[in-house]
């Protein structure tokens, strides 16, 4: 396993005071808290910071950790001292915290934690921790529903008091109509309970991947649809894409760019389902040939059109 430099993780020197450690921990906890942080590895960093703090904030654990010596480099292959960690000492941790910490941590403090789990007040039944994960899906999957295979790594405290990693696979059915930021609760799929307690839950937060055409607002979807000037001026029935396939949309005569038309119930499904909001965008055909240019000139002569009248010019 790899040696973990708890001082480096908290960004403090080895002779940092208890106040320095507390300050550094508070700052990093705010920075990497999974509810606050947008960093992609926030969850892992937060756990690491918590683990470092768990050891360094307690003078006895800190002294034991310092006893390993300062010659280690972070990431260096680490073999625990003979006998497996600080076995002559008793350290107390909440078992649910233990389960979150690294192999390195449990190789050092594992025995103490086992003692605590057996004899202390924490030996009573306790529900497992909830777990959180973010799940990125695309808009088509959100519309139709989808199935995702998740591989969950979970720490298990073995009979020797050490933490082992165990993985299991989940095929999760994502219902149709999920939208950005929504959460799905998978009961009993979090971390295992302690002392016969129930397992925690797994919460999946939906993150919708950006779509090349559609933009999502809750269950509504928005799209900009280009139309020709004559379609806007005279009115037309035009095909527009929706998540369920193309539909015909009636563009009223005299429409301008930016006009919004609503296709009721064509957004993400739900009760009620969302709508599709179509924003018209008039595109001007380029005039390449003489005939095309002549047509524009005739328009200029025919229309008493002053587009900048409102600007007073």
């Amino acid at each position, binding site marked *: 396993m790899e040696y973990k430099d708890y001082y480096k993780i908290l960004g403090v020197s080895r002779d940092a005071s208890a106040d320095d450690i507390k300050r550094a921990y*508070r700052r990093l*906890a*705010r920075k990497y*808290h*999974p*509810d*606050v942080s947008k960093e992609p590895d926030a969850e892992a960093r*937060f756990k690491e910071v918590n683990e470092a703090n768990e050891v360094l904030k307690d003078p006895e654990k800190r002294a034991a950790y310092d006893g390993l010596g300062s010659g280690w480099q972070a990431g260096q292959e680490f073999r625990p001292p003979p006998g497996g960690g600080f076995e002559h000492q008793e350290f107390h941790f909440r078992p649910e915290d233990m389960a979150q910490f690294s192999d390195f941590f449990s190789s050092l403090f594992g025995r103490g934690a086992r003692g605590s789990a057996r004899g202390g007040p924490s030996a009573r039944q306790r*529900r497992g921790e*909830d777990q959180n994960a973010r799940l990125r899906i695309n808009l088509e999957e959100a519309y139709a529903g989808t199935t995702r*295979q998740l591989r969950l790594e979970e720490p298990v405290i073995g009979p020797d008091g050490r933490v082992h990693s165990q*993985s*299991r*696979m*989940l*095929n*999760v*059915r*994502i*219902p149709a*109509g*999920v939208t*950005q*930021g*929504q*959460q*799905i*609760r*998978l*009961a009993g*799929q979090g971390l295992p309970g302690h002392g016969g307690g129930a397992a*925690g*839950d*797994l*919460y*999946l937060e939906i993150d919708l991947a*950006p779509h090349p055409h559609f*933009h999502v*607002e809750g269950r509504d979807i*928005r799209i*900009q649809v280009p139309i020709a000037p004559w379609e806007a001026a005279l009115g037309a029935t035009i095909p527009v894409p929706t998540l369920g396939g193309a539909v015909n949309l009636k563009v009223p005569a005299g429409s301008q760019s930016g006009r919004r038309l609503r296709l009721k119930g064509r957004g993400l499904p*739900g*009760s009620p389902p969302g709508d599709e909001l179509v924003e018209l965008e008039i595109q001007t055909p380029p005039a390449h040939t003489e005939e095309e240019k002549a047509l524009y000139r005739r328009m200029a002569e025919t229309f008493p059109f002053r587009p900048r009248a409102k600007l007073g010019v």
Partner: protein
Amino acid sequence: MRQTVIEIEGVLLDEGLTVTFTELGQLCGADAEAIERLVAEGVLRPVGRRREEWCFSGREIGRARRALRLLRDLELNLAGAALAVELLDEIEALRARLRLLERDVDR
């Protein structure tokens, strides 16, 4: 190593789902007092007058869990956690708005 694959369908925490006061406490692993304090602080807005009648939407579950995590992990007080939850909601709304505007600018 052989591995079993578990098929599972979760519960979507949206407006379509409502839970009672007791159920919310169980879902959050919190006691009645903690939930009551979140309601009193305005973090949670249940429908119903008395505690026994309170109903919380699926979205409130997410807010409650977030507030409780912030209280625990960052050692915030209740007002601080309430403020953080509100600001985080606002940041999410602004981010969504920003994504929309950036799209329009890119066109």
